[in-house]
């Protein structure tokens, strides 16, 4: 028993038959009872990992352990997992009750109908679909189908629940509601859950922990807020955050950081935030839009191209050094389109990345 590493993935690699390297040496672990989001752009390998956990794909090398036991050579049906597909894959010719009972009534360990029905009804109550028992999936709304799919995944009392983009088929408003429901539900059942998504907002709102992938490599494995406040690298800084982070090309030489029209003394930066020594060369200076604000004297001066209202804030859009950048200001700020403003960065909140994307500051 090792509850901190209930699910453990060690040096996992997956090379497809066509030579495509989908997963390159991935290792992570999941605590028992946690809801972990596997986040990343499409094609980053997150579904490949989920399918390897489920046993639908075999890893090329590496190991997967559930509760400290390797499952790489265990058939999917013996892995004690529940799987919710993106399109739910409910059987259209069966009623809701028959769908939920299905896992209990097939295979070697199948149980008598009445016992299966009893268990199915218990989980249908948990997922609040009891009154839909005799309906066919075709008559249900997206949200209801979702709940049937979850009930079916839970009915065998699996130890791990795997969900592949379960919200992507729902409309925006329903998505907000269902993601809350899913979180409450898996917490109530207490099941360890891995949830694949490409939507950072979804991941940030429901995950106890997020693992961000790109090109088959883990970019950051952390608590939600750290992706925002302490991104590991250039990719993470740009993937997480809305509006997206501003990037400025700079040159570092002898203690001075020089942009196209600004200069910052390295001494003005917070010494404790350096990850390593700053050497001379080309870098990217990145700053979240809320940390670059209009001021009397600033680092950058620019003409505002456009002002966009987003609820209680406004985004001031400007072009700097040929690249669009944003400043996130309060709703009451009187700056209009076409105004010339000076913008000042909070130097204790900026990031410096090397050309390779590695974070230095």
């Amino acid at each position: 028993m090792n509850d901190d590493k209930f699910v453990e993935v060690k040096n996992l690699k997956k090379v497809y038959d066509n030579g495509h390297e989908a997963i390159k040496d991935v290792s992570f672990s999941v605590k028992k009872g946690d809801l972990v989001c596997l986040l990343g752009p499409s094609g980053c390998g997150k579904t490949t990992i989920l399918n390897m956990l489920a046993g639908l794909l075999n890893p090329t090398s590496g190991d997967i352990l559930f509760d400290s036991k390797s499952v790489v050579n265990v058939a999917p049906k013996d892995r004690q997992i529940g799987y919710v597909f993106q399109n739910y894959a409910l059987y259209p010719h069966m009623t809701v009750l028959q769908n939920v009972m299905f896992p209990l009534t097939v295979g070697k360990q199948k149980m008598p109908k009445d016992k299966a029905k009893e268990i199915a009804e218990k989980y249908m109550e948990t997922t609040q679909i009891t009154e839909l028992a005799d309906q066919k999936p075709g008559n249900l709304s997206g949200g209801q189908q979702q709940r049937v799919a979850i009930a079916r995944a839970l009915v065998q009392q699996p130890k791990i629940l795997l969900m592949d983009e379960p919200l992507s088929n729902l409309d925006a408003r329903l998505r907000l509601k269902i993601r809350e429901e899913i979180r409450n539900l898996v917490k109530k059942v207490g099941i360890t859950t891995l949830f694949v998504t490409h939507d950072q907002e979804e991941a940030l709102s429901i995950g106890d922990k997020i693992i961000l992938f790109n090109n088959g490599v883990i970019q950051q494995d952390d608590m939600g807020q750290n992706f925002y406040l302490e991104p590991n690298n250039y990719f993470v800084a740009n993937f997480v955050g809305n509006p997206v982070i501003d990037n400025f090309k700079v040159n570092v030489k002898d203690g001075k950081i020089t942009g196209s029209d600004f200069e910052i003394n390295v001494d003005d930066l917070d010494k404790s935030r350096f990850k390593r020594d700053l050497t001379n060369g080309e870098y990217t200076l990145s700053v979240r839009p809320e940390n670059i604000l209009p001021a009397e004297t600033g680092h950058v001066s620019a003409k505002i191209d456009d002002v966009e209202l987003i609820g209680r804030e406004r985004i001031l859009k400007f072009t700097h050094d040929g690249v669009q950048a944003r400043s996130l200001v309060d709703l009451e700020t009187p700056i209009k389109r076409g105004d010339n403003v000076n913008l000042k960065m909070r130097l204790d909140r900026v990031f410096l990345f090397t050309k390779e994307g590695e974070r230095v500051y």
Partner: protein
Amino acid sequence: MRSNQKKAWLFLAPTIIFVTFFSIYPILRAFVMSFQSGPLINLNWTGFSNYQYIFSDPEFWRAIRNTILYALISVPVALAISIMLAWFIFSKVKHKSFFETTFFMPYVTSTIAIGIVFRYIFNGEYGMLNFLLRALHLPAPNWIDDPSMSLTTIIIFGVWTSLAFNIVILMGALRNIDPNYYTIADMYGATGTERFWRITMPQLVPTIAFLLTMNIIAAFKIYTSVYALFNGQAGVGNSATTAVFYIYNKFQIVGTPGVAMAATVILFLIIMFVTFLQRKMMKKIGGR
């Protein structure tokens, strides 16, 4: 609204005219003719005498009996074999398109041509089938020339010819089944039999219903394969006569169109009744 409706009639006109002249009119004409006697150019009303004639004609009853037996045996057997073959090709065979094409060949080949080939295969003395049966020390009946075998021969031929269309349609239906349905079943350890009976078969019900209707209607109209197998005859001593054969014979050979049309009306009613019954049954099975 008004002018819109006028335009709609204009667009519908070609179809309406075509259907009226080539489908509705012949049906009505056949119905009227079934109450008339005499040669085509000089028909006169004779009431129900044509019906009285066919109902007392043992030849007619043999034709109907053969047709019904043929439909009731060949259609379910052909459908069962088609489902098995389609499922086998779909789930086990690697070069699917090659086998699909092979199985589709009979459909695009003329029944007459196939029938001539089958005459050789079925030949009692030098046929390939009997050569094989003798090699396996099984009884080798005279498929073509023995009157008691002719219906069996037609059924075997009918099953074989209807496989092509059935398999191609069933393969399409199998391809349309969401592969995730099987993935889930595998994940819960469902056996191959459970996969087939709990997922594949229910998913195929609409397709099977369609094929059953098409096959039964085609089976009741069987004519060409009899003609081809028995060299233009309805088997030795008319042993393999069918409803359409009877109609054709009474119309063209004997020259009593009224009798032929009375038989047509009866065949029409039988097909309608069976189709209706079968639709009701499939609705119950499909449950949707």
